[in-house]
């Protein structure tokens, strides 16, 4: 029997905050999370730029549920459980494409991309009541909502609005999306990989800054060389970690490396310097000097509880991770870019920046994966060595980016969700 109070050990007077390693390995807690977190929270599904034309669709698994997302003939976004109302096969078995209707492979029931059943097989062999029933339509997801192009789903009918759920994270999403003049889109080419570790390790890691100079020493070296030694990590950078409410957190700090908007590095050359200065000038015109400085010269790691990161650093990655087992997750990472960068050297620089750090072939992310997998392996010592420590900066509530305030905020929300489930 799991006691939620045995999972966190918090002693504010002593300044200690510990998390039971059991939380990362216990199959009963994994199942509890399926109900208390993944069936209750707003979960990132897709970006509007993935479905720009009417009648396009994509399929995706979110918290284990197979979903079909369409933009119907009238241009409305719709999300369905990808399960045939008849005998339960997947209605659409393709990753993405364009279709006005879908026909189930098994017995041929056909559905419009707005979910209405178009035909069932041999309708004369069913009652009139049956044939006229709404139950033959595709089942929509309980809740679907979008914020600034990011589409979320919630499996809980009675959940609060997406806007309320996002709380202080809305402002951070705005700081990212507003960098673009014509809007943001996901660049073609998706990185789909996995990590052999519990999903919560990546939630923690996505907003962890302390490990930068240590785990990513080879990346720091690369930047030093690319910038002819003008960009190094050896000075204290301004910044802060902020609890945004509902388990969301952001860690902002002065960027030390080149940023597409708008921080030039020597290897980009003089032409790029002019282009980037232009972009920055336009940013100042649109948003004022202070906001432009905030947007362009600060990196931000934004975690939307439970499993979405929008990390705006040397490029912008949108990353989600789906738990597949207590010790495994499927990760998907995209690059977000302004529409106005299409077909320009700016996009090439952005993608080059992205690949220097992020993704399975980058100079940093694979070492993150290695660290998380190392934790997961070592967590098998949980009986004899039960506690992870997240006390850094706890005794005085220090919001320094190198502290563990972000991870503590995540765990407090996690604990609250699990405890409610046990209530």
């Amino acid at each position: 029997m799991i006691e939620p109070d045995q999972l966190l050990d918090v002693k504010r007077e002593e300044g200690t905050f510990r998390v039971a390693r059991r939380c990362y390995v216990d199959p009963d807690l994994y199942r509890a999370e399926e109900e208390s977190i993944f069936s209750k929270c707003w979960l990132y599904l897709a970006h509007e730029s993935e479905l720009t034309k009417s009648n396009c669709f994509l399929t995706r698994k979110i918290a284990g549920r197979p979903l079909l997302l369409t933009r119907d003939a009238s241009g409305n976004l719709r999300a369905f459980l990808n399960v045939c109302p008849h005998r339960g096969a997947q209605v659409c078995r393709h990753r993405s494409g364009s279709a006005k209707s879908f026909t189930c492979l098994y017995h041929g029931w056909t559905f419009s991309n707005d979910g209405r059943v178009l035909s069932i097989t041999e309708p004369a062999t069913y009652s009139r009541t049956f044939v006229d029933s709404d139950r033959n339509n595709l089942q929509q997801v309980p809740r679907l909502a979008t914020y600034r192009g990011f589409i979320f789903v919630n499996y809980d009918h009675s959940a609060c609005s997406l806007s309320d759920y996002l709380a202080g994270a809305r402002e951070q999403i705005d700081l990212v999306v507003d960098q673009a003049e014509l809007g943001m889109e996901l660049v073609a080419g998706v990185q789909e990989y996995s990590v052999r570790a519990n999903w919560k390790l990546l939630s923690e890691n996505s907003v962890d800054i302390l490990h930068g100079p240590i785990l990513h020493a080879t990346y720091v070296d690369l930047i030093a060389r690319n910038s002819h030694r003008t960009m190094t990590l050896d000075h204290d950078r301004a910044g802060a970690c902020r609890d945004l409410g509902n388990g969301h957190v952001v860690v902002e700090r002065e960027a030390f490396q080149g940023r597409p908007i708008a921080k030039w590095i020597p290897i980009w050359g003089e032409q790029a310097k002019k282009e980037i200065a232009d972009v920055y000038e336009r940013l100042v015109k649109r948003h004022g000097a202070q906001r432009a400085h905030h947007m362009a010269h600060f990196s931000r790691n934004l975690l939307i509880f439970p499993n979405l990161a929008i990390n705006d650093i040397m490029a912008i990655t949108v990353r989600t991770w789906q738990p597949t087992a207590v010790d495994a997750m499927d990760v998907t990472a995209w690059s977000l870019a302004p529409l106005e960068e299409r077909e320009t050297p700016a996009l090439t620089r952005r993608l080059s920046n992205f690949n220097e750090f992020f993704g399975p072939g980058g100079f940093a992310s694979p070492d993150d994966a290695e660290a998380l997998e190392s934790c997961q392996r070592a967590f098998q010592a949980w009986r004899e060595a039960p506690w992870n420590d997240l006390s850094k900066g706890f005794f005085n509530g220090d919001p320094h980016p190198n502290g563990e305030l972000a991870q503590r905020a995540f765990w407090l929300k996690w604990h609250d969700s699990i405890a409610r489930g046990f209530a």
Partner: protein
Amino acid sequence: MIPLESWTRTEAENFLFEEAALLDEWKLDEWRALFLPECRYLVPAMTVDPYSDPNSTLFLIADDGHHLNERISRLKSKAAFAEQPRSRTLRVISNVTLKGREEAALQLRCTFITYRTTMESVDTFWGYHHHLLTATSDGARISEKRSVLTMCTLRPQGKLTIIL
């Protein structure tokens, strides 16, 4: 030394087998020397056409010569933790064909299966290599290697920290 314009499958295989052996033995500097200083090493994302433009499409790896040098530097250091201790690899090269010949240049295609193991995992990567070779006074050199993974995803492989 047989000039590039006279290469048959035998010379192509010899070259590719030698490349694979250097990589299996982690002889990264010698492997780099098979490439021109200005070159490309590309691993497209599996969700797009493998001949998409790396300038405007997100790849898994899109190294120019400079980044390839940096990649090797990183792998030689002790701080590339995903390869410390180093994984053991085995590269199988097969189905070698000569796809195109131009003035002082040759296009090769082969299938590859690359096994990577650590104490903790066993992973397999497979697909096609497309090599573009150029004739130089020191022999054939690679100007572009495009490794097209034909799995659907990097699940469960996860990492791409070896040279394919």
